[in-house]
């Protein structure tokens, strides 16, 4: 793999790295035929970002296919011999640390894989013949892929980045989540106020905008979605610097919201943010007994509260697919048979499949996401023992598929009482039918279809429990049999 970025594009590339660095801690690099993909996911896996730089973005672009012969032998297990890797965000950020300087001095940036030394080499060719070379270590990895289908979302808003920046600027920097409320007549942006500290002591801010201000405004479903502001700020910082229009796709509560940027066909960026499964009429609260304290600490370090993770990432795809998954086991293996959703990456079905099978295949077959993403493994754990569920940063997405197709997002809140909010996404509401006494079979739904799924089926059911409030005790064990 080798690519050379011309000087005027290095700035954009650097900004993209900065933007990604505000979201995740690892940078997943994947050279593809149709461009270089940079991706990341945040530690709680409630946000996913992907930049795709088209070959036209570069002076020279070589996705490394020709090298495949040698690599293929070394990686027999890989579906294709293509090189994929991840590097730590920190190391990459050090290359593009000072954007103003880069803008002024760098004439070319070369990214090359040094296969013999196993280094990813960033070379900045600067003015006056100065060359800066960064040899970064990398880890080979499976592709990071969130499955989402933005084109299926009933709601689409296109706005100038400035408008969104202005809107977001009204909220204080410490504000973690905002709620976007849309109707055909107006858009409302509200700060999301958690139960604690006392909502009566917190300032409430609400901004309303009229649809005329947007470049495109299509609302098929009145709804409100709550998502993290931190990632949105990162997106807007990038968008604003590059004068981008931002397209927002979303469905409803608990389903992911997608922000897309289209850089005049030389690059495109998609960001998938989890939305909160709001406690409300569609939700029920249960308690998972073992987790509370530990989980709380973890999620605090995570600065993000109860954003449901997994469900969010893949919802559109999954919630629909679960219809066909009456038999959960079949469900896994049948993934490929499902009608392919037009997702942003729909043509690339394989990674998704791989990930889905991860649980079945076991570590030998699918070591990557499971083993290398810390959370991935934890998903695994939490499916086996719910006592581990706190490692999931208070966020668990569970989707059920049973005779009655029902979907739940199980979300573990951060409150004093550890609550699991079961949310039935309204997207499938017509089919929704909840029979308290017969908990349906469940499938743990992770954004990446990680490992957990197969084992989850049995053990996660327990967390699911019933729609009624179950106080604390061992819901898991009791229900599991």
């Amino acid at each position, binding site marked *: 793999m080798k690519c050379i970025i011309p000087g005027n594009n290095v700035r954009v590339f650097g900004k993209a790295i900065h933007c990604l660095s505000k979201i995740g801690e690892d940078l997943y690099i994947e050279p593809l035929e149709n461009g270089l993909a940079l991706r990341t996911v945040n530690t709680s896996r409630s946000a996913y970002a992907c930049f795709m730089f088209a070959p036209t973005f570069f002076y020279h672009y070589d996705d490394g296919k020709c090298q495949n012969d040698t690599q293929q032998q070394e990686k027999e297990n890989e579906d294709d011999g293509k090189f994929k890797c991840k590097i730590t965000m920190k190391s990459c950020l050090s290359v593009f640390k000072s954007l103003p300087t880069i803008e002024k001095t760098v004439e070319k940036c070369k990214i090359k894989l040094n296969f013999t030394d196993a280094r990813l080499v960033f070379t900045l060719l600067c003015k006056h013949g100065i060359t800066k070379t960064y040899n970064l270590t990398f880890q080979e990895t499976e592709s990071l892929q969130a499955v989402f289908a933005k084109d299926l979302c009933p709601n689409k808003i296109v706005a*100038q980045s400035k*408008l969104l920046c*202005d*809107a977001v*600027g*009204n909220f*204080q920097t410490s504000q973690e989540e905002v709620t976007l409320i849309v109707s055909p007549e107006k858009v409302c942006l509200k700060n999301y106020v958690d139960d604690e500290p006392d*909502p*009566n*002591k*917190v*300032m*409430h*801010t*609400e*901004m*309303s*905008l*009229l649809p*005329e*201000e947007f470049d495109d405004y299509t609302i098929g479903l009145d709804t409100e979605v709550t998502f993290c502001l931190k990632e949105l700020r990162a997106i807007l910082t990038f968008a604003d610097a590059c004068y981008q229009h931002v397209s927002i796709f979303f469905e409803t509560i608990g389903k992911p919201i997608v922000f897309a940027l289209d850089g005049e066909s030389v690059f495109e960026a998609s960001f998938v943010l989890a939305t909160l499964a709001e406690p409300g009429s569609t939700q029920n609260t249960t308690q998972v007994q073992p987790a509370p304290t530990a989980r709380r600490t973890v999620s605090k370090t995570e600065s993000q509260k109860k954003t449901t993770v997994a469900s969010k990432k893949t919802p559109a795809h999954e919630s629909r697919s679960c219809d066909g998954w009456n038999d959960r086991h079949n469900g896994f293996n049948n993934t490929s048979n499902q009608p392919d959703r037009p997702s942003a990456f729909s043509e690339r079905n394989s990674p998704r499949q791989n990930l889905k099978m991860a649980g079945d295949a076991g570590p030998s077959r699918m070591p990557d996401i499971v083993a290398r993403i810390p959370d991935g493994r934890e998903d695994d754990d939490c499916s086996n023992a719910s006592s581990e569920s706190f490692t999931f940063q208070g966020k668990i997405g569970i989707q059920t598929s049973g005779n009655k197709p029902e979907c739940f997002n199980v979300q573990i809140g951060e409150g004093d009482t550890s609550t699991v909010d079961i949310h039935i996404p309204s997207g499938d509401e017509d089919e929704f039918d909840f029979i308290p006494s017969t908990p349906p079979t469940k499938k743990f739904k992770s954004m990446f279809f990680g490992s957990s799924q197969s084992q989850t089926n049995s053990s996660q059911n327990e967390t699911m429990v019933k729609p009624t409030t179950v106080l604390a005790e061992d819901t898991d064990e009791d229900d599991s049999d």
Partner: protein
Amino acid sequence: MRFRGRLVDVACIQHFTRVVSTISKLAKNYVLRITPDKLYFILNDSVTSGGISIWCEMIQANFFDEYNMDGVSAEFNEIYLDIIGENIMRALKSAQSAKSVKVKLTKKHTPCLTFDVQLPSLSVSSRNVVHDVPVNVIARRLWEDYQEPPMPEFDISIYMPPLRLLRNVIDRMKNLSSYVILSGNGNGEMNLSVETDMVSVTTHFRDLSNPTWNKDGELEESQYEISQDGQSQNFVSARIDIKKFSNFLIGQQMNPSKVICNIVHNKVIHFFLIQDDLSLQYFIPVISL
């Protein structure tokens, strides 16, 4: 109890913001007193939490285009609200480019001071931002805690040099010690000094003037006569927390036309900022050795 005001002019909004910002930098929460003619920002810290007092008053007509209020009762036609400065600042931050700002007392989930900000937009209609700042309404019986502090019987009253100049000096001194001794005399001289085991630094200011006050504690305009007493050469000093002084110098954005410093020897320093019909009084207690 009702309150509703409307700021229209950008200059008014910004002026109002500057005042609130100045106060908010001095105190985390404070009391907003609303009367038919004036608005007051009041802080009356207990001795344990630093003993600072602030009294700021402004004439509402200079800021508000519309202003309506009904107090607790006809007899006590006033409202006292306990507010958190940071919240108000945030609300006003989004009002910086506003077309108009409505401020009203509302009952939402809790008593709130609602800032309804109309912002210019890309289309004809305006954007609308509403901030609900939770407030505590202070009961009538507690009002007496928030009365104007009496003018101290100061030993020396002196006009301060430009605050920006002082700020530079204090910023340097802050690195040396946590206390500063401010002293002045009736001869237009003022000293700022810090003392440590290693060093003692004093900055002298000369040719300042001493205001004259009449018997009612009112400032008299004939400022340039030097105080009467023969003791005018003697310095009166007060040792105060340098951080509080520095906060005051850094935070103040009011561009006052006059800044008077009244020193009560070894007791308290009273800063008096006057700008047109806006005044701010700030009391810093002495910390003795």
